[in-house]
């Protein structure tokens, strides 16, 4: 899996025995040490802000907000990994989000009603979503074509895209914000109306748990089939237990964020429930953007590690000539990464415009910077060939937890930017240092 690509460092000989034993145990579980380190860093950041806020930050409702705010960037970062791994860059993602978000808004308020599909037609949002995803794929595909087949550097093509697409947003809407989307569509953006509720959340936990165990059993069986060495049994059980506990824990966490009191009263009235003293507690569960992030992360990881396309992307990034000489259709592979990026931008645009209940001229502005930062903080290297999807998603959460934590503690946005910039440099600096140390050994 991914760990084969990032290359966990080999244990040092001079390390003392205790750390040796811990490393040995970690190696036996085949956990990706980089990801593990990032999780620790993320926890550290949140804990720091938690203390700073007087113990108020880490609560279900707040964490849900944080993840929802990071969701768009996280989703796009999964695509940016493949783009950077294959030695390209996409500067146009923020502008693609802008164009697609404005398209959703105009489709729902203007274009589709003109075709007789009004805001009251139940499937309007699906039609709009499908068209939006198509627009994203088209824009990505067109840029990808110019890059892969015409041979214009991706930096130039997507810089052009950044400018011209942002201008297109203005032209599309004649410079005005558009609001008033379909209620069903707005659920994509999360919030109190866009969460799946208690039961469905437990169901998600159950499915995840079964899937994790199933995957572990399947992998073990596969390795047995060929007589390869397998993980020690304790490691398998531990991994399964951790995975399951995480799924159940996260679900329980999500289910302990509740509908606001006012809406809960309304809910009680609608469902004929008498409100208990102290108010009715209606668990919200997972909001849709979080499920989208999880879904996209899984799908993209699968694509990157279990499909030829992903293998080719990484091989091309490692050695473009070797990939070409191996008979890989490298141009089509590159073009596909950009199509995929366009589609992911369209998903992010759906979340963004649904959250806003419309689109403004600046939706997605500067997103390219956060997306690239997330990928890079997540361990993607500009030298090509190196980077993981889960790493980039974690990177997005790290960046957003900084912004949210500072904002939560009342720190002004210029200061937030200063901190975000410094963290970006430190994160990449540490990573470069680690890699260099790893490679000279």
């Amino acid at each position, binding site marked *: 899996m991914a760990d084969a690509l990032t290359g966990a460092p080999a244990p040092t000989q001079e390390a003392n025995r205790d750390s040796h034993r811990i490393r040995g145990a970690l190696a036996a579980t085949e956990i990706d040490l980089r990801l593990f380190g990032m999780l620790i860093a993320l926890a550290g950041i949140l804990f720091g802000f938690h203390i700073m806020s007087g113990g108020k930050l880490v609560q279900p409702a707040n964490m849900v*907000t944080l993840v929802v705010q990071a969701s768009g960037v996280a989703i796009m970062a999964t695509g940016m990994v493949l783009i950077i791994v294959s030695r390209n860059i996409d500067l146009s993602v923020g502008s693609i989000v802008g164009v697609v978000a404005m398209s959703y808004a105009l489709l729902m308020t203007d274009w589709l009603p003109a075709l007789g599909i009004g805001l009251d037609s139940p499937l309007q949002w699906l039609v709009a979503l499908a068209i939006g995803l198509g627009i994203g794929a088209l824009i990505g595909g067109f840029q990808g074509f110019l890059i892969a087949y015409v041979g214009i550097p991706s930096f130039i093509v997507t810089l052009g895209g950044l400018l011209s697409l942002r*201008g297109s947003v203005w032209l599309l809407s004649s*410079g005005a914000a558009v609001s008033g989307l379909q209620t069903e569509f707005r659920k994509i953006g999360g919030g109190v109306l866009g969460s799946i509720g208690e039961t469905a959340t437990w169901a998600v936990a159950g499915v995840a748990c079964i899937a994790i165990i199933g995957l572990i059993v399947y992998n073990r069986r596969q390795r047995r089939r060929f007589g390869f060495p397998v993980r020690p049994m304790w490691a398998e059980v531990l991994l399964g237990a951790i995975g399951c506990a995480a799924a159940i824990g996260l679900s329980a966490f999500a289910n302990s964020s509740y509908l606001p009191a006012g809406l809960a009263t309304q809910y009680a009235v609608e469902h004929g429930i008498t409100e208990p003293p102290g108010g009715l507690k209606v668990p919200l569960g997972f909001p849709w953007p979080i499920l989208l992030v999880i879904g996209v992360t899984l799908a993209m990881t699968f694509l990157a590690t279990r499909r030829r396309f992903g293998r080719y992307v990484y091989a091309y990034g490692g050695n473009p000539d070797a990939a070409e000489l191996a008979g890989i259709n490298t141009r089509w592979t590159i073009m596909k990464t950009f199509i995929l990026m366009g589609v992911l931008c369209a998903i992010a645009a759906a979340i963004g415009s649904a959250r806003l209940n419309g689109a403004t001229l600046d939706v997605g502005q500067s997103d390219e910077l956060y997306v690239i930062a997330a990928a890079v903080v997540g361990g993607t290297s500009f030298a090509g060939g190196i980077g993981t999807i889960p790493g980039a998603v974690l990177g997005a959460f790290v960046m957003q937890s900084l912004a*949210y934590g500072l904002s939560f503690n009342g720190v002004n946005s210029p200061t937030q930017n200063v901190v975000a910039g410094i963290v970006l440099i430190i994160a990449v600096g540490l990573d470069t240092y680690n890699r260099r140390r790893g490679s000279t050994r």
Partner: protein
Amino acid sequence: MVPRRFAATLGAAAILLAACTSASPGASEEPGESAAASAAADCTVAVSWNNFQQPRWAAKDKPNIQETVEAGGGTYIDADANLDTVQQLTDVESLIGQGADVLILLAQDTAGVGPALETAANAGVPVIAYDRLIEDPSVLYITFDNVGVGRAEAEAMFEAVPSGNYVLIKGDPGDPNASTFLPSGWDEAGLQDKIDSGEITIVDDQFTDAWSTQTAQDNMEAIIDSANADGVEIDAVLAENDSTALGVVAALQAKGYDPIPVSGQDGDTANLQNVAKGLQYVDVWKDANELGKVAGAAALALCAGTDMASLTIPDGLINDDVAPTAGLTAAEFTTPGPDGEPDSGDESVVTSFILQPQPITAENLDLILDSGWLTKDVLCEGVDAASAPAACQ
């Protein structure tokens, strides 16, 4: 920042399909009375716009100036500098070369526009600083009262929520409007006094980079979470403009907050719709139609040789609600000077017409319809019939 000029020139053509461009809301304006009939016949009024990116200039200001000028027998010419200071200097020279008698200038850079003023002075062409102040005693300054916008926002909000927990959402920290003028308007309306007396508590006070709606939404969500964690209920949000107000409203909805009063300014369509729906309490509106008429009339009068100090706005040209507090005759306006600080010794005095902004709430939305700013279809789209304000019934 990205040079928007490129964005405009490259345009949608390269990447977006032409099919996607929507019909522009072509609300054509009728500029009330035809002004200053006495003006000279051969008067050429030139306008140098700094941009047409913001839709208001082409949609509201330009037609009103043009129709006022042409109704008075003058000729209208203009140029668009596309957010480029140097381009604007070239535009001014070319406009004067085309025989301009009066120059109306929407300055891209109020400091960098100096050479254009010199060109105009050499040619004996009087200059009207339109909407944006130019620090030069020779100009006629026509604008809305910008400090007054902040004052109007706060006054309206204090009427709705005289005391309680306020959140302040400001615009870009680099923009003096966000950091200085609007907040001082809030204080003129008594914000600081109410804070000092304990009537109002500030829950949080945040700037919004680039006035971005998304950033405003993210910040507001964090503020709500933080307030919830503290058990604090937010009673009102003073947002400086409409783009930030839009983000605030989205955050309140996402968090399931009961609608609370939110302020804004600009008269953006989405925000006026929110006013109609009861999601935004007040939108301070600067009717650009009126500003254009005043500029057109003043230009014609300058053409006819009227002295700047004795200019008057023709009776009945503009709506009484927006008429300057100083009356219809040009008044003196003391500028803050290049350093932006009042009373620092570098101020200058210019002749001016300072129009009054109008706070729009659900009560007086009919003003928006009457002026033709928005049509009823657009303004009342999606408004629940049961709770619709008078203007939407």
